[in-house]
Structures are given as C-alpha cells and as structure tokens.
C-alpha cells in the first residue's frame, strides 16, 4: 500500500506536466471552435466518442497517414502532447 502510494506520488510528479497540457487543451479547444463550433457538429461523431480515438485521429492527420484538405496543415502546429490534451478536453 505504502509502496503504491509512493509510486503514485512519483507518477504524479512526472505527469504533472499533464496539468499544463490539460489547461492548454482548453486554449487549443477554443481555437477549434472557430471552425467546428462548440458542439463539433461538423466532425464525424464516431471520432469524438473517446479521447483516445480523437487523439489517434489528430496524430494521423499530423503524420499525413490520414489525408485531408486542412487538418494536416493545422495539426502540424501542435506537439503530440498538445493534441492529446485537446483530445481529452474535447471529449470530456
């Protein structure tokens, strides 16, 4: 129990950047709304069912494995951690 608590603390310290990423997720999300609207209505809804699925889609745009007209250009402006953060925020 004690061991796992220490593990958790260590984990928290190393993942504390998540708190920054989580906040920036909000800032990035606000930028997304300009095209997609608050309810992301013009996005394939099956993509936004989970953070993981959205993150993977954004990463696929970034690496050009998923072709598009615009999202390949936009996602390249963000780190993988930022794309993860915005995926979490938008699916929360």
């Amino acid at each position, binding site marked *: 129990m004690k061991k796992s608590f220490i593990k958790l603390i260590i984990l928290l310290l190393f993942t504390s950047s998540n*708190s920054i990423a989580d906040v*920036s997720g909000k800032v990035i999300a606000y930028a997304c709304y300009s095209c997609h609207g608050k309810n992301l209505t013009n996005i394939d809804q099956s993509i936004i069912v989970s953070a993981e699925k959205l993150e993977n889609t954004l990463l696929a745009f970034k690496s050009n494995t998923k072709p598009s007209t615009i999202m390949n250009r936009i996602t390249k*402006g963000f780190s993988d951690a930022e794309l993860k953060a915005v995926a979490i925020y938008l699916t929360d």
Partner: protein
Amino acid sequence: MISRRQFIKLTSSTAGLLVSGCQTKLIKSTSAHVVVIGGGFGGATAAKTIKKLDPSIRVTLIEPKSHYVTCPGSNWVLAGFKSLKSLAVSYQQLSKKYDIKLIHDKVTFINPDKRSVTLSTGNTINYDRLIVSPGIDFRWDAIDGHNQSSTDLIPHAWKAGVQTEILNNQLQNMPDGGKVIICAPPNPFRCPPGPYERASLIAHYLKRYKPKSKIIILDAKTQFSKQSLFMEGWRKHYGFGSSNSLIEWHSIPDNPVVKIDIKNKRVETDFGDIFNADVLNYIPAQKAAHIAQSSGLCNDSGWCPVNHKTSESTLYQNIHVIGDASIQSPIPKSAFAANAEAKVCAFAVISLLKEIDMIDPVWINTCYSLITADQGISVAMVYKLNPQGKITKVKGAGGITPNSKEETLSLEANYAKQWLPNIIGDSFT
C-alpha cells in the same frame, strides 16, 4: 481500477493543487468590469469568451449598430450565392445568453488615467480593463478627388452592408461589355485574399450574364495572398492569361492610383495612365479605426502596437487592442484572426484581473476563398509565441490548399461554406 480519463483528471487536479500550493497569490474572485468597444468578430468573441470563462466578471459591449453584417461572405453576395440579409447578425442572443450588457452607442473618448470611456450621449462608463476592437478606417489622404462622401458612387465595399449593396447594384446594372476596376490596397489591410476572391466571384457572375465584360485589378502590391491558387483558378475558369480573359491583374506598386474622377469613374496613376471604368471599386489604403487614432493607441504606422501575449497596448495600460486595428503580425487581419485574438485576449484579461499566471496562447487562422460556386482554396497557419514573446508561425504547420485536384477544391468550397455559419455562431451566439 480507474479509467484512463479518470486517472488523467485525478493527476491533473492533484498536480494543479501541488502547483497552486507553490503560488503565493490567492486566486481572486472578481467582480471586475470589462468594457469592450466594437461588436465585430473581435469584440463579440472577446465579450462572449470572458463571460464563458468567468461569469462573475461584468462585461459591457459598446457597438453603435443594432446589427452586424459580416465581411466574410459579402463577396459571395456579388456572385448571388448569399443574400446580404443572411449575413446580418443581431446582438440580442449574445447579450441574453451570456449576460453581456449591450450599449448601442459610439465611444467618443477614452480616458486611460481615469479608466473610463465617454459615449456620444455624454455618459461615462468606468472599466477595470478595456478591450478595443474597432476595426479599420480608410486613408483618404492617399487619393485625390475621392473621399468618404463619394463612396455611394465609388463603393469600397470593404465594410459589409450598404456598401456591398451599392457595389452589387452597380454590377447588376452594368451593360455587357462593361469594365470593372478593382483597386487593391497596399499592405497591411483587412482580409488579404479579399480583393482576389472578389475578382473571382464578380467574374463568376459576369461569365454567366455579361461575358463580354472585363475585370481589371490595379494592385499597389507585387504579390498577393494565395496568388498561385487564384491564378490557377482564373486560368481554368475565367481565361486568365488569354487575350479575352475576364480578369486582368496589373501590379503597379511604383505607379499607384493617385486620382479619381468620380463623375466619369476614371482613375489616374502617378505617371498619368488613365483607366476608365463602368464600375469602380476603389479599396483605399487602411489604418486602425478612428477611436484608436484619437485615443493615442496607434503608433506612426497608424495601427495599434500590443504585447503579443496579452494584447495589452504597449502605449496604455489596462487597454487591450485586438482584431484588424492591432499589430499582431504575422497573423493577418481577418475575421478568423480577430476571433482567435479575442479568445487569447479573454484568457489574458482574466489572468490579469485575477493576478494569476497566463497559460501559453495559441492562434489558428484559416482564410477560405471561393473561385467559383463549388471550387475553393485556403491558406492556414498556427501561431505561438517565440521565446522573445513575439507571435511566430509554427514551423511545418499551415500553408495553402495541398493540391489543385478538382475534388480537393470542391471540398475546400464545402468547408468554406460550413465555416461561415460556424465562425458566426462561435463569435455572436
């Protein structure tokens, strides 16, 4: 067993506690008053975003007009894709939904020392922070024979509404074989691809109804936004480069238009070249709107210098300037950019009011233009702050439409049409 999402929530909130534990300042609950001047894309978005992020802040939006007609989409009116009416937005929903106090009046004076603005009625309103998003004015001194009072004959149509209607009526009444002259302004100006989208969509109209006509763009610049894409589209659809092209582009930076004969719709260049028009769309050189000039928020360039992170004026404290009036280059002057700048400004204003650290901002800008009813192009960019605190393009991001395949341009046109109601919704409702 906790889910991944719960875990991230747990870690981030705990980490948040750890971080805030290190801070000496307490997060203030605020009943501060933020006043926003100008109800365009910048002002409306700023007012809305502040209320969304912190409903305890009082927000007052001051805008003379009861409705706003969006500039995006106003070129589409000229091709008959949109009615001008459909571009009009009311402020009622914004005001009600977010509890924003709306004042339909004009600000005549800003007093940075007293932190107050004076309205044309003489009333004075105090602010804790002021957001100025007044848009543009024109530099009439750059031209001889034409000014504000003759725009009912020579429309600029660079502020949407009545001006768009005048230009549209003139085009409708022009005989086949007529000549349309668009005088494109020097940099920097509102909506860099705008004059060229306008040429495209007037050509779209003329091709169908008045095919013997011609559009001549007299340009104060040597190059323009999305030039290769526009020219490719013009070649494909409007005979650009051939002897009977619907569009001609004349780049005359060293021989600019200096004089307009309003009655005869005739323009004269510095070297004395004469161009006669049936419809003359002179888009003047631009500067920040009057209230920014008269309040001393502009530098010698005629635009408002700001701290890029917070958009706070570098000339006056507690006043933020966003949108076309502000200098946030390399971000262009566009509705999309004003919306993006407004959001960053809202985050900044709240951080400053609460005396907490501001998170790193990010801006996205995408400019869509239509070449025909179903062929579109775009340019996009993501911007962040560099270590010196200046807005910088993110390397490797952004760029123009990836290829000129018909299906790509067709998708771009679809996205352009979807984008407009979304950004209007995101800014005004």
